[in-house]
């Protein structure tokens, strides 16, 4: 047993020095290998982080949003609909919401204006998101002035800046009072942007939605789960596209690995011949090559994964932001929450190391059966 372990140590030792002796070839392999891991890991980490971000965003949103549709378009909904729908079992709360988008030409960004339910604001007061404070360079007590659609300018005194765990939720948010909201956007009293319903039991959501469409035929209920699922589907779909593209890459990599493993240089062939002539056995060579594969795989995996981690969580996934994301322009400081999942890591490991190993078995064996007497000829 002791001799066996010592032997493995000698083999690893030799492998390391033999890898270092051929930096060109092995560096190329390592770079390509790491790149594959990097791409796959980036996609996985990024979509996963986005998904959990979306979940976080939606966690506090109501179970059902009811919108009135006029000619197939979202319209203001009368508050009287709250009574009109009557009592629906499973609904434990309902109210109207006021919110809208405002384009700020000064910084060329869209804000979300909203009337909060959990706090009372004075008419000229506003609570703003951190990103707005940053881009407009305002802090507490400063004034923000916006020109409304009717041409009048309205000033808001910034009374607080929203702190949030996830910037996605609140970055572009401006909370204003109800009166100011109505005058600013010209929304008549008694009308809301949409209605929201709270349903305790998620199993009852579909039934509630069904009843709503029967009782208020000109409305459209949107379930939170549906939004979540849409997000999931979009992310999955985009991830799918990227993966399909990457499958080609993996295949190319497998061929590349096969080629690298089988295309031994004359120098390497001579080396294996020498080793065999001076007393190494075929299985020793196979084992040595196996260690070589393991070392390359592990370092490529580590390298690729760490770069991907940095890419996604510190460099904002700069490489595929345009492909996978579609948020508004107002997220200069957008940070995804770092997250590592064991099963995900294992899956990634499998999808990169397993193909490499399979691809190299036959070439390794071919190299290992070199005739020991080649060095004599």
């Amino acid at each position, binding site marked *: 047993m*002791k*001799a*066996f*372990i*010592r*032997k493995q*140590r*000698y*083999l690893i030792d*030799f492998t390391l*020095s*033999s890898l270092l*002796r051929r930096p060109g070839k092995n560096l190329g392999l390592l770079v390509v290998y790491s790149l594959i891991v990097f791409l796959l890991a980036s996609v996985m980490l990024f979509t996963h982080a986005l998904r959990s971000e979306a979940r976080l965003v939606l966690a506090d949103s109501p179970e059902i949003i009811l919108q009135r549709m006029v000619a197939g378009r979202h319209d203001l909904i009368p508050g009287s609909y709250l009574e009109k729908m009557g009592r629906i079992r499973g609904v434990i709360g309902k109210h109207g919401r006021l919110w809208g988008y405002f384009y700020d030409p000064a910084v060329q960004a869209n804000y979300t204006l909203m009337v909060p339910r959990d706090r009372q604001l004075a008419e000229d007061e506003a609570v703003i998101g951190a990103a707005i404070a940053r881009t407009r360079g305002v802090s507490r007590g400063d004034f923000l002035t916006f020109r409304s659609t009717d041409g009048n300018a309205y000033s808001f005194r910034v009374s607080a800046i929203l702190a949030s765990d996830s910037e996605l939720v609140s970055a572009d948010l401006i909370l204003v009072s109800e009166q100011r909201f109505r005058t600013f956007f010209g929304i008549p009293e008694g009308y809301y942007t949409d209605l929201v319903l709270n349903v305790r039991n998620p199993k009852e959501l579909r039934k509630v939605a069904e009843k709503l469409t029967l009782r208020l035929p000109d409305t459209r209920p949107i379930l939170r789960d549906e939004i979540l699922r849409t997000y999931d589907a979009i992310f999955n779909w985009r991830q799918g596209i990227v993966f399909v593209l990457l499958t080609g890459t993996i295949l190319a990599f497998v061929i590349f690995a096969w080629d690298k493993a089988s295309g031994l240089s004359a*120098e390497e062939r*001579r*080396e294996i011949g*020498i*080793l*065999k*002539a*001076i*007393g*190494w*056995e*075929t*299985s*020793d060579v196979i084992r040595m090559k196996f260690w070589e594969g393991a070392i390359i795989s592990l370092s490529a995996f580590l390298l690729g994964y760490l770069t991907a981690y940095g890419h996604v969580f510190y460099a904002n996934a700069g490489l595929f932001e345009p492909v996978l994301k579609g948020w508004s322009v107002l997220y200069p400081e957008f940070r995804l929450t770092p997250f590592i999942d064991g099963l995900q890591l294992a899956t990634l490991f499998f999808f990169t190391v397993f193909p490499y190993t399979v691809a190299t078995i036959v070439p390794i064996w071919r190299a290992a059966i070199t*005739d*020991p*007497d080649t*060095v*004599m*000829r």
Partner: protein
Amino acid sequence: MEPIQLHQVKKAFNQGRPNEFWAIRGVDLTIQPHRATVLKGPSGSGKTTLLSMIGCLSRPTSGRITRGEQLLSGLPERFMTEIRRRTFGFIFQQFNLIKGLSVLENVMLPAYPLGPDHAQLSRSALELLHQFGLGTKAESRVEWLSGGEAQRTAICRALINDPEILIADEPTANLDSRLSREFMAIVDGLKQTGKTILLTSHDPVVFDSPVVDRVVEMSDGQIMDPSCC
């Protein structure tokens, strides 16, 4: 120690194909222990092929090679290797050192698959290097060695597993006559310690040397004067 005996050993290459070629055509030979034997002949006479079969590097197509009771031919490669690395030490014509590794590492290489204790292994390797005047070169890369140093490194490597039989293929082909004579002096020393020496050569410095006990002349895959055996 028992002699190595060859009975009707034949070796073919590309058997069954149009370019079939018989390199060895029936050799009977006995190699006595503790002696220096030289296989002499022009290139293409089959002496290297014969040497590689005796050294368990390759297998005869037919015939038997035995050492006492033990059969050396007809064994699977795995066991030929096992016998080879304990019984034979090889010195090749091109020295066949592995570039990029240090002299010490090159000498230790044959012992790796046996998994010996590392400290002990490097100690005995260093001892050998000192013995052959290479003590100061232990850490230098083999590319920087002169021809004679390279050959002495190769000799140390051949001796690291303490084999009973030393095999050298054209050992003086890449040496000038001074180094060739030095090599024969080393061979003499090794013979004194009880090693069996088996050489191939067509260099008179080798086969005319007083160290050599016996010269076997080969031609065309056969031994020229069978009576001598």
